[in-house]
């Protein structure tokens, strides 16, 4: 067995274990030198990214990886913890690794002036481990544990600037909300455990019956995970947290939010996959309606904000609505085979493609906001103006982000939004009209930002403003280049990354059959 095969076989565990080991070692390594610590953290994230890419390239070719902890064989999957990586998990893990890598590079100079940096990097690595654990695990309770790791680490990171009262307050709101959500998730896991005496997602998915208790558990799981993902009207923690955290943390928080979103889809499609005929229509319509409200309210609130990061946070809420709309349209038609083949797959590939586009676009905009804050120490849009004269490259990156998030053709947002518009139009024209309307309003929101922050006369108070350091520009450049590549060649991305993920969600029986070979269900 060659070394690559060995790595590939153990990569699901290593992807979580390496950031954890790095997090435990960081307090000791930071005794040496600050520079050594930064290099060490970047190295850890880089190794993890390479492992994720290795695993993903194998998973996208059609294999589902399983990894049993503490035992070699799959004969006793009932008792041990199982990691199960299908294309959807690998897709999410790719997003997470890109965001982490960018964030760590960006942090090098962005956060450099503050104290407590060794704890900062420790928490970033822990957040990475929690995110990857949520995305790769195949066990309900393990999912809960990693959810808690993610939320505790993100809460501590949101409160990084403790001398600002609002940051501490946002962190408190975040931890209250997320621990409440986690407790309800634990409660519904206990409901499922009490009925079926199993904790594995695949095992539960093979025996689930949609009884009364199952319905209660489904509702609690969807509501709690949707609250963690920031669905209106449970989104209000999100602008507080995103707006007050340092920009380098916010971009990882996007990844954590997407991990909760992944949880919603995993619960709807895989855990309750066997009862999909009973549940799909009503749950699908609920998700579509939540998505519509999310888009409209998110974008309307973004229009009247005057704080730069808070405005972007509200538009991030609106973007999550697009994802919910796409996936919900697919779920609504899931029981209807004929319609699903026509519309559903398109809608779902639009929704899933939009996950990666959303995290890249919103991430780039947050990084730009952080760069503006770094250069001017100013967050309010009313006090900015004429920054394009001092910060050329940042302005270019902002324009790229603006075009991408509002779905203007040469950028990546266009491709996924086009898919969503087309499919929802065939289901019900009102849905796509609302989607297009909120997309237009998103453009209006960011044109406002572009005008008030970057255009206009050169204000005398910003005379000394200089361009941000090269590492921050490099981090923004990575995301911008990925956005342009995705925008120019969407066909490539959809064929190689998105379609396998969509198929993994639709063919839930493959996921279950990997653990229980005798399972006969699904299509």
């Amino acid at each position, binding site marked *: 067995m060659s070394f690559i095969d060995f790595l590939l076989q153990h990569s699901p565990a290593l992807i979580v274990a390496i950031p954890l080991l790095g997090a435990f070692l960081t307090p000791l390594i930071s005794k040496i030198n600050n520079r050594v610590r930064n290099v060490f953290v970047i190295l850890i994230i880089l190794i993890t990214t390479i492992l994720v890419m290795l695993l993903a390239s194998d998973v996208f070719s059609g294999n589902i990886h399983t990894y049993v902890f503490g035992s070699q064989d799959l004969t006793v999957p009932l008792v041990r913890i199982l990691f199960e990586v299908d294309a959807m998990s690998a897709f999410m893990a790719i997003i997470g690794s890109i965001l982490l890598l960018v964030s760590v590079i960006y942090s090098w100079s962005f956060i450099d002036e503050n104290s407590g940096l060794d704890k900062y990097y420790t928490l970033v690595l822990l957040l990475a481990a929690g995110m990857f654990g949520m995305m790769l695990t195949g066990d309900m309770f393990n999912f809960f544990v990693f959810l808690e790791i993610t939320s505790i680490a993100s809460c501590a990171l949101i409160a990084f600037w403790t001398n600002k009262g609002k940051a501490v307050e946002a962190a408190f709101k975040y931890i209250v909300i997320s621990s409440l959500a986690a407790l309800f998730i634990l409660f519904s896991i206990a409901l499922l455990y009490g009925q079926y005496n199993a904790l594995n997602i695949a095992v539960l998915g093979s025996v689930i019956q949609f009884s009364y208790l199952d319905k209660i558990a489904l509702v609690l799981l969807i509501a709690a995970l*949707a609250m963690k993902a920031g669905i209106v009207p449970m989104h209000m923690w999100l602008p507080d947290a995103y707006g007050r955290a340092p920009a380098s943390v916010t971009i990882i928080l996007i990844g954590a939010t997407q991990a909760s979103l992944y949880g919603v889809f995993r619960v709807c499609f895989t855990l309750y996959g066997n009862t999909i005929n009973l549940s799909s229509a009503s749950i699908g319509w609920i998700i579509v309606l939540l998505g519509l409200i999310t888009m409209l309210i998110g974008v309307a609130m973004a229009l*009247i904000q005057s704080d730069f990061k808070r405005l972007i946070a509200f538009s991030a809420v609106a973007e999550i609505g697009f994802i919910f709309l796409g996936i919900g349209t697919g779920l609504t038609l899931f029981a209807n085979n004929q319609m699903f083949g026509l519309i559903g797959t398109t809608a779902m590939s639009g929704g899933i493609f939009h996950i990666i586009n959303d995290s890249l676009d919103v991430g780039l905009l947050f990084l730009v906001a952080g760069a503006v804050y770094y250069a001017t120490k100013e967050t309010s849009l009313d006090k900015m103006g*004429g920054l394009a004269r001092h910060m050329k490259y940042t302005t270019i990156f902002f324009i790229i982000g603006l075009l991408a998030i509002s779905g203007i053709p040469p950028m990546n947002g266009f491709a996924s939004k086009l898919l969503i518009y087309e499919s929802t139009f065939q289901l019900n024209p009102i849905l796509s009209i609302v989607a297009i309307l909120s997309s237009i309003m998103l453009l209006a929101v960011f044109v406002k930002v572009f005008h008030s922050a970057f255009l206009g006369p050169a204000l005398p108070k910003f005379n000394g403003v200089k361009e941000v350091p090269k590492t921050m520009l490099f981090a923004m450049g990575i995301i911008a280049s990925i956005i342009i590549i995705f925008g*120019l060649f969407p*066909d490539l991305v*959809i064929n190689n990354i998105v379609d396998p993920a969509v198929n993994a969600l639709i063919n839930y029986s493959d996921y279950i059959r990997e653990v229980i070979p005798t399972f006969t269900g699904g299509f």
Partner: protein
Amino acid sequence: MAIFESLLNTFETGSGFWNPIVWLVTILIIFLIIYILRGFGNKNYKINTEQVKPFLSGNPEYDKEKMHIKGSNIYWGFTESLKWIFDNLNKMHTGNTSDYILWFVVIISILFLVVGLI
């Protein structure tokens, strides 16, 4: 060269298509038009002279800060005409942690009614 060919594939969505070559050519043509238009510009424009200053009907020039339209004033007409919507939205976002949890309870009970009874 299979990868290279797959890069240039046309992406079809059913009623629309997307080809990178077409778009690159379009962008090139736009830049060409911009370049040509720029060529018609006035040659004797001089920086750091009176020509640069804005002409405000003979009035003196305001401060730079006053010349710039603030961010919250840009869509004034739009927000003013839809004031009732934005007022209600602002009332909804109280910033109170108890209310956040209350919305969670509301959504859970609505979903219970929808999923549990239907």
